[in-house]
C-alpha cells in the first residue's frame, strides 16, 4: 500500500480498507528500514505521528471526510515545526526548536495530515544534489550511489522510495522540480505568492516558494488545495481566490497550445533525455495539443542573474544566524567579533559561505549597479519573455534537467553545479508555476518533463500534468527499493 498515490490512499481510508494508524505505522516501519541507507529524513516523529494518525481515525469515525485526513506526509526541514527540530540542513540550526509552525505546516495539519518527520535538504536550500547538507548526503532510490537532486532531495527520495506518500518542498531555482526529475516523481512549484512563506526559512525571499512532491499531479492538486491561499502574515502572498484544482484536472488537452522553447533543446542536453522529452511532447500532440516552437531570448542570462539576486538576498537573510539569540554559538568567544566570526565560520558549510560572500560582494558599494541592479533588469527581461510567450501558448514544456541523476561527488565545481538548474531557474525569476512529471528513463534512471504555466496558472499546469499522466505510466514506475519493500511488506 505504500506505493499507492495519495488519491488512492484517500479512497482506501474512506472505505475503511485501512486505517491511518496502519498506514502511518507502515510508513514508519519502512522509514526505519530504508532511511539508514537513504538518509532522507533528519528527524523522525514516530510518537506524534501515531498520535495524529489515531486522532485522524477518530475524526473519520465521527464522519470527517476531508481528502487528506489521515494521510502521512513529510516536511522539508526548512519549514518550522513547533517543538520539532528544524535544522534547514545546517549545523547552525542543529538544535533549533521553533516555538511556532509554518503556515504550510499549520494548513496541512488542519487538513488532517499526519507528519512523519522532517526531510534532509541542501544546507539552507543551497544546492542541487543534497550534498551540502550538514546531515549528510541522500541516496537516490534508483541508485543509492547517485544524488536525489536538491535542494528538496530528502523529500523527493522519501516519496520515491515510498517512505511517505507525499512531502513538502521549496523551490528557489528548481529545488522541487529537479529532485522530482531525478527521483521519478511529480514535483510542483506554484506561482510566487500562491503559498505563504511564513515559517519557511528564507534563502532568497523573492524567489522562494513552497510546493509539493508526490507520485502524481492529482496528488499535487490535493496538497495544493490545502496549502494555497492568502496569509496576512506574509505580505508577498497574494489575495486572489484559490481555484478548485481537482475539479480542473479532467479537462482534455485537445486544442492546448504547448510552447516548446528552442533554447532548452540546445547543446548540453543529454541525447537520451532529449529523445524522451520529444516523445513526451509527441504524446500531448497525439492527444490533440499543438506544439509551437518559442524563443525565450534571455533564457541564457537566467543562471548568471539568479546567482546575483539569490545570493544577495541570502547574504542578508542569513545575517540573523549570529550566535546571539538562538542556534549554534561557538565555544568561549573572546569578544563580539570573535563570536560572529567563529559562530558563522563553524556553523555554516562551504556552499552557504560561498553564496554569502558572492551576495555581499554583489551588493557592495561600487558593485551594486554592475551586479545587483543589472541582474534585476535582466530578471525583468526574462519575465517579459514569458509574458510574450504566453500570448501565443497556454503552457511551455521541455526538459526539467539536462540529464539524469549523477553520482555523489561528481560535480565538485560549483559553477557546474549551478548549471544544473539551467531550465528551471528562469521560472523562479519570472515567478511562474511549474511542474516536473516523470517522462522516461535513461539507463534505469528517471528524468522529468517540465510544464510551466502563466502567472497563477496553477490549475492549468496541474491539469496538463494530470492529462499527461493519463496518457503515460512513467509516474507509476517504482525504484527497486520501493518495489522490493512492497513485496517484503505484503
Amino acid at each position, binding site marked *: 500500500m505504500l506505493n499507492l498515490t495519495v488519491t488512492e490512499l484517500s479512497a482506501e481510508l474512506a472505505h475503511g480498507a485501512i486505517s491511518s494508524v496502519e498506514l502511518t505505522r507502515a510508513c514508519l516501519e519502512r522509514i526505519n528500514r530504508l532511511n539508514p541507507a537513504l538518509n532522507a529524513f533528519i528527524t523522525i516523529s514516530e510518537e506524534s505521528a501515531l498520535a495524529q494518525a489515531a486522532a485522524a481515525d477518530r475524526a473519520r469515525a465521527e464522519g470527517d471526510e476531508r481528502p487528506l485526513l489521515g494521510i502521512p506526509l513529510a516536511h522539508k526541514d526548512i519549514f518550522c515545526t513547533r517543538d520539532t527540530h528544524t535544522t534547514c540542513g545546517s549545523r547552525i540550526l542543529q538544535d533549533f526548536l521553533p516555538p*511556532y509552525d509554518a503556515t504550510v505546516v499549520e494548513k496541512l495539519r488542519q487538513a488532517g495530515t499526519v507528519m512523519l518527520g522532517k526531510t534532509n535538504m541542501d544546507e539552507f536550500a543551497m544546492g542541487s544534489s543534497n550534498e551540502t547538507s550538514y546531515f549528510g548526503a541522500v541516496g537516490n532510490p534508483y541508485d543509492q550511489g547517485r544524488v536525489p537532486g536538491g535542494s528538496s532531495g530528502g523529500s523527493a527520495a522519501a516519496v520515491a522510495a515510498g517512505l511517505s506518500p507525499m512531502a513538502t518542498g521549496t523551490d528557489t531555482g528548481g529545488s522541487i522540480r529537479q529532485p522530482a526529475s531525478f527521483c521519478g516523481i511529480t514535483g510542483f512549484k506554484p506561482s510566487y505568492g500562491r503559498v505563504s512563506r511564513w515559517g519557511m526559512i528564507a534563502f532568497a525571499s523573492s524567489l522562494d516558494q513552497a510546493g509539493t512532491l508526490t507520485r502524481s499531479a492529482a496528488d499535487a492538486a490535493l496538497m495544493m488545495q490545502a496549502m494555497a491561499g492568502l496569509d496576512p502574515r506574509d505580505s508577498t502572498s497574494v489575495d486572489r481566490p484559490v481555484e478548485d484544482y481537482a475539479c480542473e484536472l479532467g479537462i482534455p488537452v485537445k486544442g492546448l497550445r504547448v510552447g516548446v522553447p528552442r533554447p532548452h533543446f540546445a547543446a548540453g542536453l543529454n541525447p537520451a533525455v532529449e529523445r524522451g522529452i520529444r516523445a513526451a511532447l509527441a504524446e500531448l500532440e497525439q492527444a490533440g495539443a499543438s506544439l509551437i516552437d518559442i524563443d525565450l531570448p534571455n533564457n541564457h542570462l537566467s543562471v548568471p542573474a539568479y546567482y546575483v539576486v539569490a545570493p544577495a538576498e541570502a547574504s542578508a537573510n542569513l545575517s540573523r544566524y*549570529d550566535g546571539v539569540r538562538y542556534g549554534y554559538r561557538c565555544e568561549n568567544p573572546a569578544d563580539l567579533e570573535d563570536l560572529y566570526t567563529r559562530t558563522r565560520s563553524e556553523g555554516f558549510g562551504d556552499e552557504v559561505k560561498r553564496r554569502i560572500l558572492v551576495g555581499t560582494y554583489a551588493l557592495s558599494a561600487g558593485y551594486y549597479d554592475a551586479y545587483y541592479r543589472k541582474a534585476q533588469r535582466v530578471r525583468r527581461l526574462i519575465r517579459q519573455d514569458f509574458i510574450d510567450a504566453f500570448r501565443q501558448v497556454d503552457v511551455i514544456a521541455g526538459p526539467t534537467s539536462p540529464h539524469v541523476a549523477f553520482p555523489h561527488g561528481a560535480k565538485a565545481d560549483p559553477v557546474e553545479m549551478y548549471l544544473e538548474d539551467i531550465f528551471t531557474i528562469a521560472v523562479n525569476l519570472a515567478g511562474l508555476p511549474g511542474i516536473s512529471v516523470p517522462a522516461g528513463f535513461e539507463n534505469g534512471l528517471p528524468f522529468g518533463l517540465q510544464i510551466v504555466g502563466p502567472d497563477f496558472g496553477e490549475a492549468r499546469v496541474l491539469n496538463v500534468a494530470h492529462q499527461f499522466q493519463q496518457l503515460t505510466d512513467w509516474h507509476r514506475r517504482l525504484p527497486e527499493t520501493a518495489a522490493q519493500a512492497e513485496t517484503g511488506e505484503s
Partner: protein
Amino acid sequence: MEWEAVIGLEVHVQLSTRSKLFSGTSTAFGAEPNTQANIYDLAMPGTLPVLNGEALRMAVRFGLAIDAEIGRHSIFDRKNYFYPDLPKGYQTSQLDYPIVGRGSIVINLEDGTEKRIGVTRAHMEEDAGKSLHEEFADASGIDLNRAGTPLLEIVSDPDLRSAKEAVAYLKKLHSIVRYLDISDGDMSQGSMRCDANVSIRRPGAELGTRTEIKNVNSFRFVEKAINFEIRRQQDVLEDGGNIVQETRLYDSVRDETRPMRGKEVANDYRYFPEPDLLPVEIGEDLIERIRSELPELPDARKRRFAAEYDLSAYDAGVLTASREMADYFEQVAQGCGDAKLAANWVSVELQALLNRENLDIADSPVSAGALADLILRIRDKTISGKIAKTVFEQLAAGSRDVDGIIERQGLRQVTDEGEIEKLVDRVIDENAAQAQQFRDGKQQVLGYLVGQAMKLSRGKANPARVNELLRDKLRS
C-alpha cells in the same frame, strides 16, 4: 573675517503607534527587558514583516503637514550591518523611495523673524534594540523591547546657519509632531533624537567639509554641541588645518565633540530593496482622507490667535508653541471672554507655576475652567488682580472652586464707599506727617498712603477707589 556655519539636521522621531513597525508587539515604554519582543522581533527563522498601517498614516500626516510630496510608490530597503541589538542583521529602512519627499518648515527666530527651512525627505524605519554594557560583569545585555519600534527620520536641507536656528527648527519639528499626535517627541526618552551635520565657510564660498555629530539628546545640548563644533572647526581652519569628514559624538559632561572610532563608522550598508515587503502604493483617496483629518497646525493657529484674539505675534507664538498650551489658552479665553487677560494669565502666572513645579501643561494643577472662573471674578471686580494671584496660588495648591475660595477666605473686594471712606480717614489720621507732605506737593507719598489703606483692608479694597478718595480728601 567672518565664518558662516552651514547646518543640516537628521531627526529621528519615534512614532507613537501602539504596536511595532512590522510586528504586532506592543511599543509601551518601560516594560521588563525582552518582554515586548515576539518571534519576528527576535528574527526567528521564517518570520516575515507586515507593515503597520498606522505608522504609514502617521508618516503621511507628517508629510502633508509640511507640504511635502508624498511618495506614491514607496519602497523599503534593507540596511545591512551586524550588531547584537539588531536581530535580523539588517535594519528595514527606506533609501531611494521614501514615504515623504521634499517639503519645508517655517522656523521662528528670537528676533521675531521667520525663516523657511527645506526638508529633503522623511522615511520610515525600524529602531534597534538596546545594548546594556554597564549592568553586567564581563558581558553585555540585550533588550529587544525597542527593536522594531517605528521611526520617522526627517532630514533637513543644509539651510540652518547657527545653533540657535537649529534649535528653533528642532522646536518647530517637536511642535508639529505633537500637534499631529504622531509622537510624544520626548527627547529625554529618546522619542526624538538628533544628528547634526555641521560645516563652516566664508560667506558666499563653496561648502566646507562637514562633520556629523551623533547622539544629541536635548535642545540645550544641540545648541551647545553645534556651537562647540563651529568653534572647533574655526580653530582648525584658522590654524591652517583641514576638517576631516567624520562622525563625532557629543559628550555633554565635558561639553565637547570627539571623533567616533573608525570601526564604528566605516560601514558599507549594502542597501537593497526589502523583498519581504511589497512597494507601498498610496492613492489619492488615502491622501485626501488624511489631509481632511489634519488638525490646525502651529503656524495656522498662531495666525488665527493673533487675528481672532488680537494678540501680539510674540504672545500668539508662545501660546501656540504646543498644542496643549494652545488648547488650554483657548478654553480659558472662551470661558472668561477676555483673551488679553487670558493670554497674560496663561503665559505669565501659569507658565511660572509650571516651570516652578516642572510640570507639563497636561498635568497643570489649575484647570482651564478654574482659571477662566478666576479671570471672570477679576472682570466683574469681585476681586482685584492682586488678590487673584492669592486665589491662583490656592488653585495651584489643589483647591478647585474659585468662588468658594473667595467666600471662605473673605477675599471679596471692598467696593462699599462708606467702608473705603472710613479706611481712608483712618490712614490720614494715623499718618499725619505723610499726609502733610502730600499737601505740600510731594506727590510720591500718595503711593505709600494707598499701600497703607490696602494693608488695612488686607488687600480687599478696590485700589483705584482708594486712590481717588485719598486725593479728594487730601486736597479738600
